[in-house]
């Protein structure tokens, strides 16, 4: 069973190699990428079931025992992230195939899109499974290198312009992460997360706090937490729709995952809890106020993306089990919904040639299915009951209220305001694009490809299914959060004989 653990990394990488070889044969190339991602999804589901029933699965690469060798760990949190991320990447891949990446002038050259996309997936899964800090760094670099290529696809002026900001900011974040890795090793002599959990406690408080802050800084840039978020709304919207969708869904959440993992496993006790709460509140407010000022659909969703990262950081900052449950549930919800929204925006752009809300109008009459897809996912984002956004927000707000005190209550208020403002933003986008007098321009008569609509519908249904399956999902997230808080299941799984 533990032989399955490296597969979510290996399958996309093998797929990438094969698709590169099949560069000039579109059909086999597509089949290989769809096949490898479907297999990844299947393996991830198996891993989640196994981790849920029997605890974390650990693989020591090359049979080197734990603190020395590289370990991959699939505990409940990692496996849950794997399932959601591979489901989402598969849907986005189908969407991009339906859109005919590389066949029209503006989209990607087919030959490099698929291999790069698969490497991106492998980087994401590697970051989720990594059992040591340096492997986490390598996972980040894999997905970054692939994302650099994807965000500057075709090298048009606009993409190079926004891409250069993205590249410089992310290279800087990686270097901060690398400094942190070097300092952690110098201070403790190990990088294995489980081993670190034992050794970091022995360090002086000042050293530990500075290591924690270095890591938070690096992950904060990747996750686009408020003072470090300015790069995101500027760089995401210009990429092709599937690329923006998968970036918005996954890349920031890998940063959030890294924050959750390191804060709970390495630095329990929440020395940075207050900082995280303040930053979370600012992220929510500043992000959503930015969204209010936007008139382009893609930019608007980029700002809601930043804003809602605040909810997850809020849950982590509370550092209670309920807060973590809420944060993990919210990550799952937000990966699905944010990806869906960008795909819908892509469909709108395909249909009308624009995502500018001032130019759109009356789409509900022209494209009722599009209207339905947009409405359901926008309301899901805003957190209207009974959608999963409501459940996630409710869980987080309850966790905040349960902690009590001035700061958590302020955060509860900020969270409620953000939710209402998201509703305002979403309904304004809806009424501007889908109501009003029809003034649709562009190739409005061209029917949308079945596969793109199908993939988007699948994601919308997945988003709604999160409500239906909320019970089992809360079971898994609670299990994951309890394990995270206790730390011992993870440490015992990696180091069965106790830390040396």
């Amino acid at each position, binding site marked *: 069973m533990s032989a399955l653990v490296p597969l979510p990394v290996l399958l996309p990488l093998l797929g990438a190699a094969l698709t590169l070889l099949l560069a000039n044969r579109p059909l086999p190339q597509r089949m290989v990428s769809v096949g490898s991602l479907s297999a990844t999804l299947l393996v991830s589901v198996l891993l989640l079931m196994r981790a849920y029933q029997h605890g974390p699965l650990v693989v020591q690469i090359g049979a080197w025992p734990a603190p020395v060798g590289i370990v991959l760990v699939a505990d409940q949190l990692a496996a849950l992230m794997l399932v959601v991320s591979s489901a989402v990447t598969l849907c986005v891949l189908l969407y991009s195939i339906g859109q005919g990446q590389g066949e029209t002038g503006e989209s990607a050259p087919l030959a490099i899109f698929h291999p790069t996309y698969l490497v991106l997936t492998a980087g994401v899964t590697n970051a989720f499974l990594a059992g040591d800090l*340096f492997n986490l760094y*390598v996972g980040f*670099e894999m997905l970054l*290198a692939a994302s*650099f*290529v994807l965000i*500057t696809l075709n*090298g048009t*002026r*606009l993409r*190079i*312009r926004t*891409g*250069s*900001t993205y*590249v*410089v900011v992310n*290279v*800087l974040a*990686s*270097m901060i992460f*690398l*400094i942190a*890795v*070097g*300092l952690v*090793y*110098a201070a403790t002599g190990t*990088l294995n997360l489980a081993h670190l959990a034992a050794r970091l406690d022995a360090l002086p408080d000042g050293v530990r706090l500075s290591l924690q802050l270095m890591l938070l800084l690096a992950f904060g840039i990747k996750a686009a937490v408020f003072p470090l978020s*300015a790069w995101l709304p*500027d760089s995401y919207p*210009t990429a092709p729709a599937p690329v923006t969708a998968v970036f918005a869904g996954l890349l920031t959440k890998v940063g959030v995952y890294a924050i959750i993992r390191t804060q709970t496993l390495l630095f329990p006790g929440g020395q940075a809890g207050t900082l995280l709460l303040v930053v979370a509140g600012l992220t929510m407010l500043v992000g959503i106020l930015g969204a209010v*000022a936007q*008139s*382009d659909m893609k930019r608007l969703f980029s700002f809601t993306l930043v804003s809602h990262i605040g909810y997850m950081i809020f849950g982590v900052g509370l550092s209670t089990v309920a807060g973590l449950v809420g944060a993990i549930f919210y990550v799952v919800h937000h990966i699905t919904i944010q990806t869906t929204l960008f795909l819908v925006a892509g469909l709108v752009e395909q249909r009308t040639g624009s995502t*500018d809300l*001032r130019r759109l109008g009356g789409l509900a009459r022209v494209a009722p299915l599009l209207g339905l897809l947009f409405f359901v996912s926008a309301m899901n984002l805003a957190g209207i009951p009974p959608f999963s956004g409501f459940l996630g927000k409710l869980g987080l707000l309850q966790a905040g209220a349960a902690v009590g005190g001035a700061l958590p209550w302020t955060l509860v208020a900020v969270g409620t305001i953000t939710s209402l403002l998201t509703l305002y933003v979403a309904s304004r986008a809806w009424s501007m694009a889908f109501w009003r007098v029809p003034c649709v321009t562009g190739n409005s008569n061209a029917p949308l490809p079945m596969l793109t609509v199908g993939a988007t519908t699948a994601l919308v249904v997945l988003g709604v299914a999160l409500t239906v399956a909320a019970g089992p999902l809360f079971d898994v997230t609670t299990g994951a959060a309890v394990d995270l808080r206790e730390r011992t299941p993870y440490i015992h799984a990696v180091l069965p004989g106790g830390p040396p």
Partner: protein
Amino acid sequence: MTGTGANLVSFLAIGILVGCGVTLLLERSLSRVLLGVILISNGINLLIIFGGRPGGAPVAGVTDPAAMSDALPQAMVLTAIVITFGFTAFLLAISYRSWYLDGDDEVPDDIEDQRIKQRAARKEVSTVDFGEEPPELDPEQLDAPAPGRRRGEGPG
């Protein structure tokens, strides 16, 4: 040869490398940013190397295990060098492409900044504040290089 480990000179060297790198990183031109990235990453590589135990070559049979240097930071630095190499190549490609398209390789302003600047130039407070439609602003138009910035036409 056995190393002596970290000392003040080595940390000064790291500080100078990273400091110069940060200064270059704050420049507008991508090629200078690239040089900054190279300097900083070399500084970080030194830092990682000094984080391990000093000693002889970590090869079994050559050095007594007790006197070996720590091999793990060296492996990490090797990985970091490869990754930085890839990023350097990519940044170089981006800066070349940017020069090819625009005649320079400067990192442009944020879209919102450009909007505010254009409004200020027209002495417009903000029509949005009075409940009117804001003026047409297309990112594609914003993207056109400012007059005077273009130094030469690309070879294309």
